[in-house]
């Protein structure tokens, strides 16, 4: 039922914004190709525009944000945001090379230049800023807990303090570190896999009592299987998602920030959401304030 309603809303939104986008497209349609736009000499933007290709790191297993579907192309909110940025660089969409960047390698691939930017449910954090820089945020998520539909014993992270409930997350991820503050005995209460899909399967099979990560990821699972899962309580952290770029590349960062702000006002930000993660019924809320530092 809920799915239908969401789909209807999404369709309506797509229609409305599709019209707006059409207008935009015709204006900017020819704006690709080397030298099609002018950037400051020596900037990252100029280099990418000259090269006419870009490598974007995203996730391949995150429904709604970055998931590689059967077509072999990644889809999701992160992917759409990346496309918005790439368009402004004057690079056609088919010249984007998407690289899978699981949580644990994101800093590495930016620092060593494997990718040009990372949009992968990437929480802006001070310790990460020591190695890379962030543009954005373009979305604010929060950590939450997913449990089985009929489970009322877990109401929030504090429910893990008595040492009996088992919780699952992903190796090397922020939620895994965060939940360690609440569990009594890591060895017997915390399960770590390499992807959240496995956590979901473990929850379904009853090997764990809860899965914890950012709310939007959990919403994706709940939307797919409303009969089995539900959310337990409110978000207990704030996770502003940003675009990761090379450390101290301030020009590129400002450039991306400008694009994001523009996308807030011209509706392309909301359209990107409605086409992707919005279908799961997650709320978008107001655009987060861009953090310029």
């Amino acid at each position, binding site marked *: 039922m809920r799915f239908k309603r969401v789909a209807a809303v999404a369709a309506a939104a797509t229609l409305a914004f599709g019209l707006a986008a059409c207008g935009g497209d015709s204006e900017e349609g020819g704006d690709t190709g080397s030298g099609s736009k002018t950037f400051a000499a020596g900037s990252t933007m100029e280099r990418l525009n000259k090269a006419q290709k870009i490598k974007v790191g995203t996730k391949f297993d995150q429904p709604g944000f970055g998931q590689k579907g059967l077509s072999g192309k990644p889809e999701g909110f992160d992917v759409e945001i990346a496309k918005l940025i790439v368009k402004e660089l004057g690079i056609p969409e088919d010249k984007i090379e998407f690289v899978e960047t699981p949580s644990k390698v994101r800093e590495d691939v930016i620092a060593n230049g494997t990718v040009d930017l990372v949009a992968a449910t990437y929480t802006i954090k001070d310790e990460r800023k020591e190695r890379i820089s962030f543009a954005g945020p373009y979305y604010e998520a929060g950590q939450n807990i997913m449990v089985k539909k009929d489970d009322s014993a877990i109401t929030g992270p504090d429910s893990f303090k008595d040492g009996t409930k088992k919780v699952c997350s992903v190796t090397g991820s922020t939620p895994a570190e965060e939940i360690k503050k609440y569990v009594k005995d890591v060895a017997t209460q915390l399960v770590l896999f390499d992807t959240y899909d496995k956590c979901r399967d473990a929850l379904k099979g009853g*090997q764990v009592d809860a899965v914890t990560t950012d709310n939007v990821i959990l919403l994706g699972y709940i939307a797919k299987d409303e009969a089995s899962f539900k959310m337990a309580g409110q978000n207990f952290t704030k996770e502003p998602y940003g675009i990761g770029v090379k450390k101290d590349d301030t020009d590129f960062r400002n450039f991306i920030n400008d694009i994001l702000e523009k996308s807030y006002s011209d509706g392309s930000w909301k359209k990107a959401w409605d086409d992707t993660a919005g279908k799961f019924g997650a709320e978008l809320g107001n655009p987060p304030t861009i953090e310029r530092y």
Partner: protein
Amino acid sequence: MNVLIDKFDVFAGGFWLTLQICVLAAIGALLLGAVVAVLRISPVPPLRAVGTAYVNIFRNMPLTVVLFFAAFGLPALGSNADFLRIPGLDAIFSRLGTDLPYFRFGLIALVLYTAAFVCEALRSGVNAVPAGQAEAARSLGLTFGQNLRHVVLPQSWKASVVPLGSVIIAMIKNSALVGFFGVVGDLAQTADQLTSAGGYAFIPVAIGISVGYLIMTVPLGALLDRLEKRQAVAR
């Protein structure tokens, strides 16, 4: 290099957990492998077929896939592998007794997978026994079981020890994969955890983890080399 000192307990814990899983899996694999080997040489065709199928399936499948079936197929079959919570044993190997089944799932996968190779090592040992031995035993009127127990197995044992040792070494190395299937805190998962979430420098962690594995594999390998040389001389 500080990480090696600061986090020594983490490395030691990882080593201890890996060692636990290896000891248990080795015992299980040797027992199951022996059973499969008996199936493979048994006179009853369906049992022989089962043994052969078992070996062909598990030898040709990546361990990753076996681990997947253990960790997600078994729950689908309605099992949490509780039969491995053997009283007494789970007091020593505390991970066996917890409600968290992934240690047991990892164990089952390693046992199933390694048993196929144990079976082949044992069988190659049986094949190494000169045919005349078994023939002589039969002409004395020994039955199949007696033949195996008193004549063939005692001799094949010698030829099997070295291949079996290599199988066990390989199993220790394969155990690194369980860290990717829900077992928290073994050596491989520790490496992942420290370098990614912990943010520690890569090289010292790599050294620490390598030493952990080499402590287990290298002495065993050296022992096998000596055994092999001794046998070569005896032959």
